[in-house]
């Protein structure tokens, strides 16, 4: 890279990088936390209502929730952004900026993670659940002390996958002025041929993703016995 290009790269990064990091942190922070909470909850709803083990006569609820999730997952993210604008406005009072971008990101991440949670729960040994049910434990206790515990490693792997997916999706937050590192890479790297900026931001993304993966793997391993 010539020294002029290098200078331009450094210049852009000085102006934009910290802000981008902050924006990404904000967007991911919000949507990741929300997806953990609601995705987990929705995943449990899908699982608990799917058979006769926990609730009877909830197949229709299950089908409704599942269809709802599928509808959201069917919508291309860019259109999801538009569809969620009214909701975004109601929730955060604005349709632009990283916080506004967090709304569609959260929605997409929630339904995505919900499916991974559902899948993880379905892998829990039926005998163990049966034994828990036989103690007369309440559903909530079984959820907390059996399902969550047994599915924990798979759920953690799902969290890692969701996080990494979110990092990818958040690159599209630029649409609504959300900014962020992914957007930096696209705007400067892709549209403006600032290869230096692009490489730098991608390296940053790779580091973040790699760290997330390592942390996720380690936690999953710790939780497996």
């Amino acid at each position, binding site marked *: 890279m010539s020294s002029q290009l290098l200078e331009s790269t450094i210049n852009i990064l000085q102006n934009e990088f910290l802000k981008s990091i902050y924006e990404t942190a904000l967007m991911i922070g919000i949507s990741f936390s929300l997806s953990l909470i609601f995705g987990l909850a929705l995943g449990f709803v899908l699982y608990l209502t799917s058979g006769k083990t926990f609730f009877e006569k909830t197949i229709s609820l299950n089908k409704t929730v599942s269809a709802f999730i599928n509808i959201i997952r069917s919508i291309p993210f860019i259109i999801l952004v538009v569809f969620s604008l009214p909701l975004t406005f109601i929730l955060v009072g604005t349709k632009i900026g990283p916080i506004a971008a967090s709304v569609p990101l959260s929605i997409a991440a929630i339904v995505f993670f919900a499916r991974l949670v559902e899948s993880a729960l379905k892998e829990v040994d039926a*005998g163990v659940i049966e034994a828990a049910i036989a103690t007369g434990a309440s559903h909530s206790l079984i959820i907390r002390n059996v399902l969550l515990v047994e599915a924990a490693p798979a759920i953690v792997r799902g969290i890692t996958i969701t996080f990494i997916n979110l990092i990818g999706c958040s690159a599209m937050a630029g649409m609504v002025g959300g900014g962020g590192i992914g957007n930096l890479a696209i705007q400067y790297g892709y549209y403006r041929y600032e290869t230096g900026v692009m490489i730098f931001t991608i390296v940053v993304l790779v580091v973040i993703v790699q760290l997330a993966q390592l942390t996720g793997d380690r936690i999953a391993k710790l939780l497996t016995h």
Partner: protein
Amino acid sequence: MIRFENLSVKFSHTDAEYTAVDRVNLTINKGEFFGIVGASGAGKSTLVRTVNLLQKPTSGNVYINGENIVNYSGQKLRNLRLNIGMIFQHFNLISNATVYDNIAFALKASSTPVKEIQKRVPELLELVGLADKAELFPPSLSGGQKQRVAIARALANNPQILLCDEATSALDPDNTKEVIQTLRNIKNHYPITILFITHQMEVAKSLFDRIAVMEKGRLVEVAPSYTLFATPQSEAAKALISSDYKKAVPKKVLEQEKDLYMITYKEEGAFDPVISDVSRKFLNTDLSIIEGNIEYVQDKPIGRLLISLRTRDEKEKESVISYLHRKTFISRLDAE
């Protein structure tokens, strides 16, 4: 206390239907130690699982304390289950939770206060001899240790009913005895009703008040343990109970001894010195015990001896046999 009424459980596969439990009628009394035995696949586990409705019956009813439970659900079913401990054939421990937490789980299920859980779990661990394994996870336990955790979990809430599905199959005789002793002690404290599936006849003998024998889903015999072991009626019971002496006694011995008789003591005569008496009365006939077993079931002796009559006077033999007839059940063993 527990009453099965015309209970059937059927499983369907593709198009075929399999009847695992077939019109069972049975009443188990409060405070009874009730055994269920039967060949592999006879339907024992399936039957027992209907008591806490882990298995919904296809038809028929299950009454517990007079109430038909087959349509229980929700909180009502949970309350029922809180009073029923169950030890599973495959242990079914939470593999990502410690031994401690596995046991604590049952206590949490019954909303036991935390303080009390902290007191009770160590007690239970002590009871099953796993005090030093509290912080291990099930995959690091040996087979028997897992089973003992399952036992501790089932006992945690002082259940009124305890369902044991081969609860001691992975335990060595010493540990088995301890578990049985523990169950006996519990029974002495309060009238727990125990339904116990086992293949271990030792366990059956020393534990049960009554025993049901299952075969191909049917209940083929129900009797007090003593009666069952002393005089099994059904083929299934005989197959389970009589250790097959013809196989156990070496061929050589069977061929050598010409006059082999199987004698079974009658309850009243069990303590009489039968062999001493015979030996003195009939001096030309020696009685040698070839094989046998005398033990106590429900505090009453059951005896079964294979004896060889070595006589130097064929006529006397008749008298010996008729003498023995008065004191015992006796039958000639065909050398075959």
